[in-house]
């Protein structure tokens, strides 16, 4: 079936629109940082440090709260909770994050919480949602234009994975009322999309015969989903490292507590738990994607694993995220070190997509980038 | 508990070490000629039966292997593109001439070749015995089920009852071929000539 170029143009227009709207949402979230309403302790649901249970909302402001927020420098394990310190029980997948870990839903429903968070947050959430809608339209019309799943080359892959990341983050942000993270994640999405549009844009086209298989829908879809999810986890991990560094500097007396920006960010524990749960969500998807890729490789190339460079780097990425999960269950490796590992895993993922597929010849050279 | 776990790991290691190396198998009833593992003689009673085949010769006439029953046959698998085949070609031509009057027939199986090149080959080396073309390696496939033919050239010595008495895997030499033929025909090379 011939490619529908008109729809391809429509897709591109919607993508540019999404890019613009996302940028505006980043501005709105940044405005919330600078001019936003202080968060009320009530809606924040903060609990005294002795309980130290996980929280649903983030970013309390106020004198007493700020000390509790910053007064937890590098405290990795929760304090004073009758749960066993056996975080190391989970060897491998699903390491415990410690404590009687519950993030209860707030009694305040989501829409009211958005309203109460202030006009900047309202604008940010609204713009993000509209941007996501435009982004989804862009991806779908691209798929309709080429009569197949719209992740057949690198440009399509990046636009699809940023869409997954945006949708996933929107869900996380609203659920956990994590407004202060909007500027970071949506900002990263804007950067990624912008680079995709300018550097690796590929017009809608057909796939080479090797890719004309229903396995494209299975393997690359799984990889797209997993990469989008890991994208969010990487941004959250970066924010964690920023907050953690600040907290440690405050504890060492080298920085003043009460930094306006950091105060509005979640605590290290909240970020740590959020990142952990994101990776826990993404890791099985990535594992499934690798298995599906192996099945497809057997159909197409005659062997299910041949250490093709892209296969090798997918394996490296998997091992690094497995190391993250192990690290979270290993004393001395939780916290900062675990997040370094996680970011290393995401770096290897990006290296795989941007460098290995383009510059290293192998069976996976379908980037479509010349 | 520690011991048990160590034992299980050792078991796993053992399985994987199998990947790293494994010895070959031995064969009895086979003697090597001149100590060379690539030239073997099969003891009487342990000789595999040569499968029957028929085909077209390089000159276009039909040939059936069954017509060779009662003679000792030297069956040579070759190709004009194959360097060791070219190296042994003169030897085969010479031994063929030597044993012609003793009831030993030479027959070639031309593998993965084209007729023009193959005819040029026979011209170049003075090979006068016929060769059957085997474009799809069907004949080779048949023989591989009874002897482990691994490549060209391969030379089989088939006794009068149609059983494979000896095999050379690779280029053959005059002494090798002569020894084998002496064993199978019961005549030494010089005896053959004097007839």
């Amino acid at each position, binding site marked *: 079936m011939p490619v529908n170029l008109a729809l391809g143009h429509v897709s591109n227009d919607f993508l540019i629109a999404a890019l613009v709207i996302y940028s505006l949402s980043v501005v709105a979230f940044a405005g919330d940082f600078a001019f936003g309403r202080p968060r009320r302790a009530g809606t924040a649901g903060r609990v005294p440090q002795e309980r130290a249970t996980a929280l649903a909302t983030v970013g309390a402001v106020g004198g007493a709260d700020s000390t509790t927020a910053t007064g937890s420098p590098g405290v990795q394990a929760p304090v004073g909770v009758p749960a066993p310190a056996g975080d190391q029980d989970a060897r491998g*997948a699903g390491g415990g994050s410690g404590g009687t870990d519950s993030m209860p839903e707030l009694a305040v429903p989501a829409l009211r919480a958005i309203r109460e968070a202030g006009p900047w947050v309202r604008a940010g959430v609204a713009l993000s949602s509209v941007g996501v809608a435009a982004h989804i339209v862009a991806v779908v019309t691209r798929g309709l234009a080429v009569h197949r799943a719209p992740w057949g080359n690198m440009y399509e892959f990046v636009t699809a994975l940023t869409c997954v990341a945006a949708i996933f983050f929107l869900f996380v942000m609203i659920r956990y009322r994590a407004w202060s993270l909007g500027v970071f994640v949506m900002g990263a999405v804007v950067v990624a999309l912008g680079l995709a549009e300018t550097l690796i844009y590929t017009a809608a086209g057909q796939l080479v015969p090797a890719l004309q298989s229903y396995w494209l829908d299975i393997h690359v879809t799984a990889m797209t989903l997993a990469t989008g999810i890991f994208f969010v986890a990487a941004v959250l991990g970066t924010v964690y490292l920023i907050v953690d560094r600040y907290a440690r500097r405050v504890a060492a007396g080298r920085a003043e507590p009460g930094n306006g920006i950091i105060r509005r960010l979640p605590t290290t524990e909240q970020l740590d738990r959020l990142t952990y749960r994101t990776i826990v969500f993404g890791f099985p998807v990535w594992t499934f994607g690798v298995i599906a890729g192996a099945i497809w490789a057997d159909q197409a190339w005659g062997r299910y694993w041949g250490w093709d460079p892209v296969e090798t780097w997918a394996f490296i990425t998997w091992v690094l995220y497995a190391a993250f999960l192990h690290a979270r269950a*290993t004393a001395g490796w939780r916290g900062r070190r675990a997040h370094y590992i996680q970011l290393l895993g995401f770096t290897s993922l990006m290296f795989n997509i941007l460098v290995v597929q383009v510059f290293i010849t192998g069976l996976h050279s379908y980037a479509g980038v010349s | 508990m520690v011991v048990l776990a160590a034992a299980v790991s050792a078991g796993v290691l053992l399985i994987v070490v199998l990947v790293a190396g494994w010895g070959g198998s031995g064969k009895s009833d086979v003697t090597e000629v001149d100590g060379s593992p690539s030239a073997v003689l099969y003891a009487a009673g342990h000789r595999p039966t040569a499968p029957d085949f028929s085909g077209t010769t390089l000159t276009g006439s039909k040939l059936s292997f069954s017509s060779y029953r009662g003679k000792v046959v030297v069956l040579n698998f070759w190709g004009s593109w*194959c360097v060791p085949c070219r190296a042994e070609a003169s030897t085969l031509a010479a031994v063929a001439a030597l044993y012609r009057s003793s009831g030993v027939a030479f027959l070639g199986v031309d593998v993965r070749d084209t007729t023009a090149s193959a005819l040029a080959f026979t011209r170049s080396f003075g090979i006068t015995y016929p060769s059957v073309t085997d474009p*799809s390696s069907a004949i*080779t496939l048949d023989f591989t089920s009874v002897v482990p033919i691994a490549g060209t050239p391969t030379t089989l010595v088939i006794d009068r009852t149609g059983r494979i008495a000896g095999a050379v895997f690779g280029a053959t030499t005059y002494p090798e071929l002569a020894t084998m033929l002496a064993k199978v025909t019961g005549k030494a090379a010089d005896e053959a000539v004097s007839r």
Partner: protein
Amino acid sequence: MTDVRVTETDPFESAAPERDGRGPASAATGSFGTGDWLKWAWRQLTSMRIALVLLFLLALGSVPGSILPQQGTDPAGVQQYFSSHPALAPLLSRLGLFDVFGAPWFAAVYLLLFASLVGCVVPRTFRLAGSARTLPPQAPRNLARLPASAEYATALSPEQAAEVAARVLSGHGFRLRRSAPTGLAGSAAPTGPAGSGHWVSAEKGYLREVGNLLFHLALLGVLVAIALGGLFGYKADRLLVQGTSFSDTQTDLDEFYPGRLVTAADLPPFSITLNTFDASYITSGAQRGQPNSFDAQVSYTASPGGPTRTDRLEVNRPLSVDGAKVYLIGHGYAPEFKVTDARGQVVFDGAQPFISGTTGNFLSQGVLKVSGAEPDQLGFSGVFVPTAVDIDGTLESVFPAADNPVVSLIAYAGNLGMNSGPSQSVYQMDTAGMKQLTAAPQLLRAGQTLKLPDGQGTITFTGYQQWVSLAITHDPGQLPALICGMAALGGLLLSFVVRRRRVFVRATTSPQGTTVQVGGLARTDASGAFEDEFASLAAELRSAHQQAAQDQPAQDQAGHDQAGQDETAQPPGQAATVRHEGE
């Protein structure tokens, strides 16, 4: 022997606490025997820290395997690397960096990792099996301190209340532990002053550990499956020109890579003929020249003399025959030539496959070695251009289909070096013993003849055929690897989704009759679902207690009235004091 694992049978602490190099038993006496060192080494190996280090090494070790050319997949690239880095390449080769995934050090890393895995997983499996017989811990004294708790009164006696609670919880699949009945002296679980209460301790979610162990054991299974494939599987390649056939026997395969325990005799005896091959390309637009579809029509017999079947072979659509799978990997052009030598004999008449390189549009190169030419052997090195267009004096191919085929040849005469020495590739020619006959490459269109200088003969470009490259593979470890992979995924999901949780019920006598306290906690509750579960459990317990109280015959009229007053005070159906942290 000292066992650093937790002695308490509490499954929440099912793993040993972090092994961080605690000394062996005889540290107290100050002497370290070999056995102690081995034990220490084993504990180090199976510690989380070392597992982490090994995971890093595995990831790091894989990096050169993707950057440097590897012997198994790109031997030509390895050769090229040697020639372009003459000093560095031998060093890298000695380190095994041109065959990373078969190198001993890489094997050491993953073998140690799996040994570490087994050393941790096997004891935990036994502990999990053992914990199937062990009980949850005692109920804490003050359940109100737990993250989720509820409290209400009931008319039942503490013992009866505990009984009802046990029934309800057991109905939900919890594993129970009960307080000893009162009246027994020296009960194992002290409940404080006589009459302070009965309790039920319930736990659920052991599947999490099952999932965890399943995941890790399945990884081990994948390793074994890979080993199986390496032992009993094989791979082979064959380039097949249109109109020709081949049989699956070692002499007729271009490359044969048997597994360790595989010999050529294990090859299934099928034959395949390539009847036609069609490749279509995109003719216009931005993707002009990109392949659109390939398909090969083949006929095959599974064994000699068997019925002939036909099939279509495509990329992503292998042919299954005799337990092996045949894949269409690539394709190319084989120009046809007719060569006569100086004596006028036809010494070559057929197709010679040419190989296309990385330049696009199937510009292909090849050699033609005419070893039967007399008196001098002839050789030709050539370029086949499918759609030839002259661009600034250079002949280039502008489209992959053979719309305007041209062959460019350089002729040689002399000794090809084929009469002795090692085997030669049919795609390479050694011109050391040859004289170049033509100064410049000669172009031939289909049907044209080139007369060679010095009366050496003629060569005619008669036409072309297409060829396909096939991969024949057999891997008995494939299906086990898939099954283990899916099992690993299942175990992973199980370990992430199932939560370990505990619910406690304490029934104590109080002024109102019996106060029932319910408390619960969960580890790593991912979504707040435990709160919902606890709330519904508490409500169910409460209504079960009410039901039991009503069903109880009215022995104690006063107690019954008392309970009735309590009932009206707290309307049924409302978990009045269900408290959750954070509200």
